[in-house]
């Protein structure tokens, strides 16, 4: 079973700081990591390879430094990595990104399954996975929480939605996006890290693929960012300290009053 996993390098959001003047993220000194939600796709991809054979190829579209994300995925156990990078891709929205990734996947070829994380923790759209499936006319399963069965030409998966779970039978090749519940990502091993260091990462640029120039980058993107703001987060609510029994009583009474004032009770 040959698997392709598109991943994204994202800023480590737990340490994210915003510039209060401009409202934009301060990227300096912020570490770049593999999108945490992609790790579940990488893990289940490696498990499927271990069980059914084949190989796992990770791909990423981004600046040259995104190579680090590919190396990390190889250190976990993926076989190959391909960097898709070109200045022409700068400013791509989800449509343009999926267009390039879709063409890259076509170029790589010979795959049974595309695995993707549910969404990236920076852009938070969850659109690129479904976009790629639509572009390549691959059947799509989203929010997959379990793989129940794999045969030579089909896969049975469980999909998580608001009301519960659904079991879907999908042909191969298909594209699935996975949620955290599907796996527990392993850590890179020392041997894996050595292998990653030795592995060459081929580079795919715009001219290596059959791309229409006017569909690339900012110019090829249907959406435009009009403005970016930092929302006010602090609410400055009433905080009561229940340091003794009287205060405990009082704080709970005040809370009930608060609930009443908001017409909750």
């Amino acid at each position: 079973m040959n698997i392709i996993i598109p991943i994204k390098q994202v800023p480590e959001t737990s340490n994210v700081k915003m510039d209060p003047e401009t409202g934009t993220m301060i990227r300096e000194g912020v570490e770049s990591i593999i999108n945490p939600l992609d790790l579940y796709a990488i893990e289940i991809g490696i498990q499927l390879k271990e069980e059914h054979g084949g190989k796992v190829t990770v791909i990423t579209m981004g600046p040259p430094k995104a190579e680090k994300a590919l190396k990390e995925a190889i250190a976990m156990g993926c076989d190959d990595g391909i960097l898709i990078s070109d200045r022409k891709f700068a400013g791509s929205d989800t449509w343009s990104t999926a267009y390039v990734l879709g063409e890259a996947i076509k170029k790589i070829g010979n795959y049974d399954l595309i695995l993707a994380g549910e969404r990236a923790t920076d852009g938070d759209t969850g659109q690129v996975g479904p976009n790629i499936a639509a572009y390549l006319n691959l059947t799509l399963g989203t929010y997959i929480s379990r793989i129940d069965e794999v045969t030579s030409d089909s896969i049975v998966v469980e999909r998580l939605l608001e009301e519960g779970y659904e079991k879907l039978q999908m042909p191969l090749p298909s594209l699935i996006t996975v949620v955290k519940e599907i796996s527990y990502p392993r850590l890179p091993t020392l041997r894996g890290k050595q292998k990653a260091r030795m592995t060459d990462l081929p580079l795919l640029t715009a001219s290596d693929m059959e791309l229409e120039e006017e569909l690339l980058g900012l110019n090829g993107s249907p959406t435009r960012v009009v403005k970016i703001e930092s929302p006010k987060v602090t609410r400055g609510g009433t905080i009561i300290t229940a340091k003794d029994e009287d205060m405990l009583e009082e704080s709970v009474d005040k809370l009930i009053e608060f609930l009443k004032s908001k017409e909750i009770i």
Partner: protein
Amino acid sequence: MEYRNIWTMAETHEGRLKDVSYELLSRGRALADKLEEHLVSVVIGNDVDKEQINELILRGADKVLVVESENLNDFIVENYSNLVVDLIQKRKPNIILAAATANGRTFMPHVAMRLHTGLTADCTELDIEKETKNLLQTRPAIGGNILATIKTPNHRPQMATVRPKSSKPLETDESRTGEVEIIEFDESLVDGRVKKLASEYSKDSGLNIHGADIVVAGGKGMKKGENFAILKELADKLGGVIGASRDAVDRGWAVYPQQVGLSGKTVTPKLYIAVGISGAIQHLAGMKTSEIIISINIDPEAEIFKVSDFGIVGDLFEVVPLLNKKLQEEVK
């Protein structure tokens, strides 16, 4: 043909319209009035409740398009996408809004890709740009650290998914009238490659934290899974459901569908009660757009208090049982 009118994609589950279908109409109504265009609700499903379809008109739609078929009983994205693409190509709507739910966030990008148009995910605000009449779509990104406003200037339709619970349905207006048009479903649009084999929908909606008005969430401070019983009691008294932080889910005290935060769900309930949750940035990303936030935590420095409308610094094992007891007396 010019692209005109606003469509909202009603969402069905087992023949019933979900609440979010009406929430989308209140968003759509405001846009339709500004643009002086019609508001159309599109219902896709099988044997959908007729009274509910009429309610779409009473709650703001000028027209309802109903597409029903046994083949549309299950959400199979390829079928939905084929159908919606076909409808869009024939009728050319200007704006399409759908719910930012598992299904909405699946078929909308599928459709947008095929039509080569822009789609903005999980919007919390929508407006019309005065000069250009373009749709302005505002959404949180980077774990809620920024609010980005996005538009699709040169492609049509303009598409957005809208965060459930981020707006309220309009009151029903019995004087409203509108047409319900039944659209024949062309069976050639059935893709047939993917089959739904089974489903396991939770009987009580307890795991549907997206759809709940009140979420009572527990974190690491709960100390063990059994202690969630006091939260359950509180949630039951308020008519809410149980949510959890990543810590609590990773420890097995709650299940993944209950997880709120960056690697779980984003919720916007009327009331969010955070108990024993410190408020890591990843958790805040999943709940800070809640209308009212109440927190109970032993640590006065906990980040969660900064985003709270009301907080109690104290031992949750004292505060919550006392709150439950007093709420019980209130009911009497």
